[in-house]
């Protein structure tokens, strides 16, 4: 059973790995420009696995920022993982031990979270390990290659590969809309709001990290008040999810 979940995780994680190689490759190029060696950038990617956080870190390292600035920047950019971790705590197999939780937490990225939270009836740690064990090497490999040789992969191919992650996100959120029209409305509103905040002029244009957090909290919060999930139908709703 564990083995089955693990291999399903690997299979489902292929689009993440593809997208990660592409995005991490451009990260690797940026790392080289910031003065990092391939070893440094690869260590950074393996230990952090966060694209926005790592891109921001490169700027800070290059400019010789203080460690406090680094910590504060990472806190703000990556705060969304906190909400994701909360959501995951309610979907994860309640029997999953403390040690499993320590390991899984390491792999909470936008993509691995998105895939895991919608994957199984009773989410086992092994499914997440499967996803992690294909996605994280992809992230590390892309970073390493990008730092070593920024023109190894043609730009057009990289751009197309980076679409894989968005395609995966769409494949996660669209099918449940067929059974639950509230979700369809919610997703449309979310995308419209996201576009609105992205194209707003000047100070209203938030950084991507903040935009994700604020919109997620506000829109999910309003939806929770307007359309609460009934306690009795909890199981049913997980089916939809």
């Amino acid at each position, binding site marked *: 059973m564990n083995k089955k979940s693990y291999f399903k995780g690997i299979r489902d994680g292929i689009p993440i790995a593809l997208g990660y190689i592409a995005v991490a490759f451009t990260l690797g190029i940026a790392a080289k420009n910031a003065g990092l060696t391939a070893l440094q950038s690869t260590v950074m990617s393996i230990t952090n696995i966060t694209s926005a*956080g790592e891109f921001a870190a490169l700027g800070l*390292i290059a400019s010789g920022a203080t460690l406090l600035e680094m910590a504060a920047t990472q806190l703000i950019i990556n705060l969304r993982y906190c909400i994701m971790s909360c959501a995951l705590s309610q979907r994860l197999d309640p029997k999953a031990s*403390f040690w499993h939780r320590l390991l899984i937490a390491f792999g909470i990225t936008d993509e691995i979270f998105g895939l895991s939270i919608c994957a199984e009836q009773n989410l086992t740690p092994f499914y997440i390990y499967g996803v992690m064990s294909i996605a994280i090497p992809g992230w590390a490999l892309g970073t390493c290659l990008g730092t070593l040789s920024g023109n190894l992969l043609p730009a*057009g191919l990289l751009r197309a590969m980076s679409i894989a992650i968005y*395609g995966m996100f769409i494949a*996660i959120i669209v*099918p449940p809309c067929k059974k639950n029209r509230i979700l369809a409305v919610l997703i449309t509103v979310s995308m419209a709001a996201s576009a609105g905040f992205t194209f707003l002029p000047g100070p209203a244009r938030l950084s991507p990290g903040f935009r994700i957090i604020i919109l997620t909290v506000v*829109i999910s919060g309003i939806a929770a008040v307007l359309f609460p999930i009934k306690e009795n139908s909890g199981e049913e709703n997980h089916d939809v999810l």
Partner: protein
Amino acid sequence: MTYYNTYLYILVMAAVTYLIRVLPLTLIRREIKNTTIRSFLYYVPYVTLAVMTFPAILSATATIWPALAAFLLAIILAWRDGNLFKVAIGACLAAFILEFFISL
């Protein structure tokens, strides 16, 4: 201006990021009973993935059109079939081929 060792920066950022990820997952061990919080956490993935996908996907290709086509195709494929891998690869191929023809 002080320049720290790069690995020290990496250590700090890794520690902060890991703490953000690990605290809720290890501290919240029980099922939350509050309906509003449960509902909130149920809606979170849909909202957050939608916000991350659009409009970010539109700037993934050199011009907006291949990405827009890939976005619409992914929605249609996801609605009809829903297979994760097929949707992801279909969107990639559409973007790649369209971008190639536009660049001709």
